């Protein structure tokens, strides 16, 4: 836990450094005439400071937090699959169109959580896709992407 805590703090430090450096390039100005980069520079600096503080806190264990491994005993495989399918959804939505992409993604999501037959998953997916398409595209005029198939 300590190592992961430190890694997360280091990641935040990195973000702070990136913002500080970028702030310089857009102009910090002076304290009595602040430029567009001054406040982000100060905020980035404080983020670095607080993240260093977190490393210090973790090291000296000032506040005891969860000691168990983050992923042990968890069904994290499902989480990875869901996330991957959702990123894929965003990538192919404009190419395949709303109906096809949503139908395929929903089928995977309905299937994945617990043991469910493909037949049931596909049926639930078709129903959900049809309902949301009717509600959002037809009734609420959300205009979903059509994709190369034309629907």
């Amino acid at each position, binding site marked *: 836990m300590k190592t992961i805590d430190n890694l997360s703090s280091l990641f935040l430090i990195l973000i702070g450094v990136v913002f500080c450096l970028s702030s310089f390039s857009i102009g910090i100005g002076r304290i009595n005439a602040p430029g567009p980069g001054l406040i982000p520079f100060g905020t980035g600096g404080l983020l670095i400071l607080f993240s260093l503080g977190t490393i210090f806190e973790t090291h000296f264990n000032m506040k005891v*937090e969860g000691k168990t491994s983050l992923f042990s005993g968890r069904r994290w495989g499902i989480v990875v699959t869901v996330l991957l399918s959702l990123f894929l959804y965003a990538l192919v939505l404009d190419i395949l169109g709303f109906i096809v992409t949503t139908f395929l993604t929903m089928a995977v999501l309905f299937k994945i959580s617990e043991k469910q037959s493909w037949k049931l998953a596909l049926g639930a997916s078709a129903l959900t896709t049809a309902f949301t398409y009717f509600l959002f595209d037809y009734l609420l005029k959300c205009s979903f992407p059509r994709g190369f198939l034309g629907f």
Partner: protein
Amino acid sequence: MDFFSGIISGFAISFSLINLLYCFIGVFIGTLIGVLPGIGPVGTISLLLPATFHLNPVSAIIMLAGIYYGAMYGGSTTSILVNIPGEAASVITCLDGYQMARQGRAGAALGISAFGSFIAGTIGVIGLMFLAYPLARMALKFGPPEYFSLMCLGLTILTYLARGSMLKAMSMALLGLLLSFIGIDVITGLPRFTLDMVHLMDGIGLVPIAMGIFGISEVLINLEEVVRRDIFKTKIKGLLPNRGEWRRSSKPILRGTIIGFFLGILPGGGAVVSSFVSYGVEKKLSTHPEKFGTGMIEGVAGPESANNAAVGGAFIPLFTLGIPANVTMAVLFGALMIHGMTPGPMLMREHPEVFWGVVTSMYMGNVLLLLLNLPLIGLWVKVLKIPYRILFPLIILFCLIGAYSLNNTSFDIVVMLIFGLAGYLMRKLNYEGAPLLLAFVLGPMMEQALRQSLLISQGSFTIFFTRPISAASMGLALALIVSYFLPFLKKKRLGIEEEAG
């Protein structure tokens, strides 16, 4: 518009058929998501925000506000019947509410929770009406230093009350501020931190961030755990509390209302904190504190009243100062901005119909909620039985559609998913999402107020300590930070936390 004509016109607006309908939709959805674990009011309001774009602003805000206070009612049902809080503000209700259900008193627990919520919610709205008007007039005299200090205080309180490390919560607030700086600088018109991406010129949207951190990440966390939801099988009867139960509950309801309302006003406070404080107070005042946790009706009546009164209180800083007191208010702040209104002291002057319409609609909303939560309790019990394997794909799909329909681009989906992943990891590593989102909303205002203050003072930070309101806010914020690091006080704080827990 003076106070009384404001109330009268407010009732005329909120009692129109269309606004009553949107109020009903809001409180219905609120109760639904309050009952269902897996998505809270923040995620839902963000989700439905794009759907309100074509509505008139008053109806939209009436509906979105209804979701917030409706969730407070619904959350208690799950806590009492399943021992799993449907909503964070109902966590403490599990302790005695579930025990009451096990003893065959589920009806009384649900009844007192609904009546307590109704009484507290209504008193909270009355308080909001009477306090907001003079406060908004006073707030007109606030300058940039006062605003900056108040926002600093709000963020400090929120990070101080964080479950884990205050340093981590502070880091999240700072990250939220940095994210809010992405886009065009309002003063110079220069693009900042946009990585030359056109989509980032207008900054990152509040809705994809909120849906990611509070919607997608919640689903991911629920997915990796196999949560058994055993509904306590009992016949729910006697929803109207008897005289003895009323006698025991009346004072906790009153105390809960006062605690909730004032903690709700406090930036960084809100429904969750007030429910815990109310429980602690009831336990302390009880002649049988040892019986708390075994089915004491006071342990249900107090916190449930507190979390509903907090809703009324939370609207005060939003409507009068333009400062969201908690993360749900931050999303409502975004909603007002999207509908072309700037929350704050000018809202009452420029858009009185929104202020009075929304406030008065809450009276009707509370009546509707009482009707929804008592006679229709059977419906919510049925909703509870929907398996999560059916529920989660639907929540995800609504999030995807909500994100896409903001600007009709997949970019917002990607942003939402990135923040969903970030929110998931944040939960695992004990980083809280609320300070990040609140800071993200406050960021542009804080930056502007700070830059203006520095211009006024010619670069001197003493300006924040020489004006009374600003000095008091800064002093309190600094005192909170110091108290966290002073070991003696820290031990005391831990002791209080343990006692409350």
